[in-house]
């Protein structure tokens, strides 16, 4: 089994003291970010990217840091769901259903511990899936030519709006805007200046780190000012932990089923963690039927969605690592990091940068063990953090984003650009234009143009080469479905999730 050998090498990379330290740091910071209302995994990773750069970390260390932040944020997200009945992000909605009732019954500590264990189990299942599936997919992807790659990029855009995305046409607009931004700068093939207006700073194109931090972090600040949310929340007291082994054992099958379902949802383009936590909760509820009290504070009702969403977060890494096509917003941000480190994500990465890929996978396993060990004793600390008013927190987070961007280039020009992206992000988010396709367009634009060029050169200018092979055609069809399906499934899924929230008599 060569996979085992690679994984062992990966552990050797991940277990060096420096990398281990960064994994621990990332897991801790990630949990903090996830626990804070309003900050999700994508924002968290986006804010830390400039820091990873300015520290000049080697690629594998930078990736280990960011994947640990990612995993940590998925863990942390559940804390506000359980204690405040406020889901930090969409996937955390399902955790409210049984988590909050448990907390109201005075079993907050048990709910938090159960969710930590379930998150661990879900991630474990997801990471094992990643180890089994990724190398095979990478091998398959090696057969892709430029036309197939072009179609694959189309697929990525079509599905990234996500099943929960509302208007597919807005996904198209967003992706196109991102691609347009990526064409700014000097054309690599011909040396033509494109859309630079003679401005020196634009010759090398627009750095997507600026765009990411602006779109995610700065627009979040503006949103907060508009809503002024978060004042006067009542925290539920976390009592002494009294989780009986029997309760954990009872939930183990639930966790594994949830992890597998979540992983599948994560691998599927565009489906992601929301679907992962939703189907694992609903299917588990149906499967257990009368043997459970889902919705009234059943520990298994916490375990199922948590295992599901953490399984999905590992699953989303599969297309990102093997095809260079991210399956979620956060993985898009991770992809940005890889590209900035001069690593071309995709099937070749498994041969050319094997140490990075397997180091990251091993770090994911280690990170999850760290998270489990960190989360049970430190849960009180993370809970305390929820009582820090966001009015202090958000300005400080914004400042950290400024510092990070400034330290990369020491140029104030970049800061203005970042602010401009923040304002644009605020307006576009108001108009329900999704952010992630913009980022993806920015990231994939150069590759996409290159592949289009290669394909057309091969065919001597015949555009039909783009859908000539069965594989390319298949990808186009799936891309088309990806655009149409949200029309049908999106409203249904959202309605179901909202209905489930309302059914629950305790929540308000």
């Amino acid at each position, binding site marked *: 089994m060569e996979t085992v050998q690679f994984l062992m090498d990966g552990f050797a990379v991940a277990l060096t003291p420096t990398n281990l330290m960064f994994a621990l740091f990332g897991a801790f910071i990630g949990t903090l970010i996830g626990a804070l209302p309003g900050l999700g995994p994508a924002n968290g990773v986006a804010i830390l990217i400039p820091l990873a750069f*300015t*520290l000049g970390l080697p690629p594998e260390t930078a990736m280990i840091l960011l994947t640990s932040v990612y995993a940590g944020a998925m863990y942390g997200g559940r804390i506000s769901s359980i204690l405040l009945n406020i889901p930090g992000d969409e996937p955390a909605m399902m955790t409210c259903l049984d988590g909050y009732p448990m907390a109201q019954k005075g079993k907050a500590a048990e709910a938090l511990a159960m969710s930590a264990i379930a998150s661990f189990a879900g991630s474990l299942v997801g990471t094992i899936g990643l180890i089994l599936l990724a190398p095979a997919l990478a091998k398959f992807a090696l057969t892709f030519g430029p036309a197939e790659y072009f179609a694959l990029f189309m697929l990525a855009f079509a599905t990234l709006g996500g099943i929960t995305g*509302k*208007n597919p*046409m*807005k996904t*198209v*607009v967003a992706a*196109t*805007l991102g*691609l*347009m931004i990526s*064409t700014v700068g000097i*054309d690599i*093939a*011909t*040396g*033509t200046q*494109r*859309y630079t207006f003679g401005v020196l700073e634009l010759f090398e194109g627009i750095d997507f780190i600026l765009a990411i931090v602006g779109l995610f972090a*700065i627009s979040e*600040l*503006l949103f*907060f*000012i*508009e809503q*002024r949310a978060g*004042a006067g929340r009542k925290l539920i007291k976390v009592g002494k932990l009294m989780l009986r082994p029997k309760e954990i054992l009872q939930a183990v099958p639930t966790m594994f089923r949830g992890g597998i379902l979540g992983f599948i949802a994560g691998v599927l383009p565009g489906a992601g963690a929301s679907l992962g936590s939703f189907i694992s909760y609903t299917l588990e509820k149906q499967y257990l039927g009368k043997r459970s009290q889902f919705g009234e504070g059943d520990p298994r009702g916490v375990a199922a969605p948590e295992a599901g969403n953490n399984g999905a977060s590992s699953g989303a890494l599969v297309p990102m690592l093997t095809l260079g096509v991210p399956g979620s917003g956060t993985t898009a941000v991770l992809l940005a990091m890889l590209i900035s480190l001069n690593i071309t994500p995709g099937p070749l990465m498994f041969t050319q940068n094997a140490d990075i890929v397997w180091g990251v996978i091993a770090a994911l396993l280690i990170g999850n063990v760290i998270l489990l060990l960190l989360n049970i004793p430190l849960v009180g600390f993370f809970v305390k953090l929820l009582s820090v*008013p*966001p*009015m*202090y927190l*958000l*300005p*400080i987070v*914004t*400042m*950290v984003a*400024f*510092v990070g961007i*400034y*330290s990369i280039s020491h140029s*104030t020009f970049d*800061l*203005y650009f970042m*602010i401009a992206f*923040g*304002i644009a992000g*605020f307006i576009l988010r*108001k*108009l*329900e234009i999704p952010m992630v396709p913009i980022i993806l367009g920015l990231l994939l634009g150069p590759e*996409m*143009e290159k592949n*289009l*060029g290669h394909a*057309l*050169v091969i065919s*001597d*200018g015949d555009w039909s080469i783009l859908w000539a092979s069965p594989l390319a055609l298949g990808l186009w069809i799936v891309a088309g479905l990806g655009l149409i399906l949200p029309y049908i499934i999106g409203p249904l899924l959202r309605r179901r999730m909202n209905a489930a929230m309302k059914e629950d008599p305790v929540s308000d």
Partner: protein
Amino acid sequence: MTARGDRILGLGLFVLAVAYGWAAQQWPEPFGGTETVGPETFPTLLAIVLALSSVYLIVKPDPDAQWPMGRTAAEILLSIAILVAYAFLLEPLGFVIATTLAVGTLCWRMGARLRSAFVIGLIGAVVVFVLFNYGLELSLPGGLLEFE
């Protein structure tokens, strides 16, 4: 329900698409004559896609979002102004002073009490400055506080 937001956006994007596409046609022919794919091929394609999808937004807009009005809008504009001023003053005033002012004002406008807002701003600024300059050895501008 009105749908003005999407219509204005659609119109703006349409104008952008036309300008972007037009600009692409103006580039000089690359050295060595026209190839099948030139620097303008991909942008032209994008301009067409954006033009079509912006027309769709004009024809079939979504219902409008709630736009901030009056005081809230003023607060948002103010905080954007603070951010721009922060970027502008970062180098001349130095990191610690500029950050204290920016974070302090933002906290205050978000509803914190004036004194605690600026105390938090100062603490945050000093902690980050020390961490970055001495811990991570990344130089942040000292500005007015710089001494040789």
